[in-house]
């Protein structure tokens, strides 16, 4: 059976896990690969106007795959942590994928929900395995193997390997090499690691001689500490990571500047943005640039803002290191 994994949204987090699990079960896995101009265009033409850029890209990936495979793999992640939800769009994703293909493709969508307990999730994964094989040991083996690879992949991201080499398990360039300037590029996985919609921001920063820190590289302990300070807890799992990372970077001066990547019109981000901007201002350590991307974002305008931000940070750094009198002149 040929199974397609669309390379959008949560693929940037669980792609490795899904791929190795399905492969270990004996399925032939087809991935839609990197986002391209044509994928984006077909996604935009099919998706709702009001969807966020990431969902439009996801639609494009679904459309690119639908004729090549027997079934599409679009899991429904309701909650990945106790007492949190993912974004509503993740909850409806399999149904939206079905609507995108016009009811034309089979969609495999196990429901993962940590609010209803671990046992429920094991059952969901097991019944997913039963589609491909009737051997329970093989399913369990595949599960363990995939989970190990997933942990490794996350660890590589934590170490600061760039996304492509982390996914393929090769040695690659590091995002953070100890250069003079360090910028936190923080946002959802699919907003930060997608090289097409972000116009290879991470790579370009490297080219400018700047280190990049992603939300994965901020220690979880620091992130959780920040979340505990908030007067009302954030109930979206991935927003917790984003907000925690931004505030931790800011409070502990882990970086010289923060770029907050948002895809227009992301619902949770619009709320978290207010919170992060205010808290960051109150802490007052680190400047923050909020970049909102959509399908119309032009490369020129995008780069100009990044360059200006980097220049500003450079000057700020130099000025802070020089003795006070020098500035007075």
């Amino acid at each position, binding site marked *: 059976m040929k199974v397609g994994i669309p390379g959008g949204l949560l693929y940037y987090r669980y792609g490795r896990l899904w791929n190795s699990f399905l492969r270990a079960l004996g399925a032939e896995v087809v991935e839609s690969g990197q986002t391209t101009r044509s994928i984006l265009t077909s996604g935009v033409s099919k998706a709702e106007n*009001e969807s966020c850029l990431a969902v439009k890209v996801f639609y494009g990936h679904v459309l690119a795959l639908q004729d090549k495979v027997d079934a599409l793999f679009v899991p429904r992640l309701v909650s990945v942590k106790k007492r949190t939800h993912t974004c*509503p769009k993740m909850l*409806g994703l399999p149904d939206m994928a*079905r*609507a*995108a293909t*016009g009811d034309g493709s089979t969609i495999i969508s196990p429901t993962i929900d940590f609010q209803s307990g671990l046992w429920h999730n094991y059952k969901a994964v097991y019944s997913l395995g039963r589609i491909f094989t009737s051997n329970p040991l093989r399913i369990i083996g595949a599960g363990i193997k995939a989970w190990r690879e997933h942990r490794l992949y996350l660890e590589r991201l934590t170490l600061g390997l760039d996304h492509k080499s982390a996914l393929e398990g090769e040695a690659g360039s590091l995002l953070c090499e100890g250069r003079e300037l360090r910028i936190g590029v923080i946002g959802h996985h699919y907003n930060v690691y997608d090289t097409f919609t972000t116009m290879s921001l991470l790579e370009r920063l490297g080219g400018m001689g700047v280190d990049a820190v992603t939300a994965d590289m901020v220690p979880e302990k620091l992130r959780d500490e920040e979340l505990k300070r908030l007067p009302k807890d954030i109930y979206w799992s991935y927003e917790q990571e984003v907000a925690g990372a931004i505030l931790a970077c800011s409070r502990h001066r882990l970086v010289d500047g923060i770029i907050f990547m948002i895809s227009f*019109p992301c*619902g949770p981000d*619009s709320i978290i943005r207010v919170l992060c901007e205010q808290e960051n201002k109150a802490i007052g350590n680190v400047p923050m640039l909020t970049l909102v991307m959509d399908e119309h974002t032009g490369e020129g305008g995008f780069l100009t803002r990044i360059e200006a931000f980097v220049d500003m940070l450079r000057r700020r750094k130099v000025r802070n290191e020089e003795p006070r009198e020098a500035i007075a002149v």
Partner: protein
Amino acid sequence: MKISWPHMGSLEFVMGSVFEEMGVDYVLPPPNSQRTLELGARHGPEFACFPLKTTLGNFIEAIEKGADTLIMVAGRGPCRFGYYAETQRRILEEAGYDFRMVPLEFEPAKIPATLRRLHDLKQGRSWLSLYRAIKFALNKAYLIDRLERQALHQRYLDREKGATTAALKRCYALVWDAGSYAALDGIEEEAFAIMHSVPRVEREEVKIGIVGEFYLVLEPFFNLNVEEQLGNLGAYVERNIYLTDWLRPSGERPVLGHREHASELLAMAYLTHKVGGEGIFSVGDTVLFHNQGFDGVVQLMPFTCMPETIAKSILPLVSRDLGIPVLSVVIDEMTGRAGVATRLEAFTDLARFRRRAHGREADLTLQPAF
């Protein structure tokens, strides 16, 4: 302490009645206006959903009128609404307003905190009087909902356009002036008599259902009076949400006499999981309206509303399968009145031609109210 709250349809009658009964000081925010919207859009985050901006505008106008305690419901659904209170508190504080935000949360773990907040709000009045005031107000709300439903059902028969709306306004005043719980029965009779006395003419009917996000469905100013417009275009209108569905503690929502669960089951064929907000009901109720012989469904949603965006991307599939026309109207601060009016007009015509073509006769007897 002067309490205030944001507008949402006839919510002002309910909340106002509670505080009036209790003898607690309150400020009614000025009615929704273009200024409300401008204030909200100026201070609100760029692509936060529309109700966040409008209620923010209400809060600002209420503070200007002297309110210092703002009530807002909070929660932890996947929808953004649960975080409104916190976000609005941050925005208003940064803008330099002086106030206290009281978020009321109704999930089990937060009940003690909510009770403490209610205790502060009632300022020494007894819990029994609060209970009585709420009971009285809820009964007023049920009555208002029944009257609104009556108006939706009969507006298309008006001899003179606007007669039903005028009658409804008189009924609102009657209900607002109700002196006691016991008087409500008499007022109900009187109000329905007013509604029934509106002169009618015979007209070919076309049935249109309204589904969508509850704030926009309930708030006539911001949904550009969609109900009234449809009624004036000659449509028998039914909507899937009434105020009390949302206020009622049990959370049961009878749509055309059906319960919430029925709607979820119907939605299952298209949307297999709850997506927060009214996403699943927008899909389920569309099927329900089709099964009840309606000729079209209008979906109302604020721009960037997450659950409704999902519903909107699935509704074309429903529409294709069942053959019921669905019009999604997305509303934000830039929405033009004329554009919506044109679309509603075209949609009503389409539904009417479709009805004629099908020659379908569905009975138009009034549904039992609640």
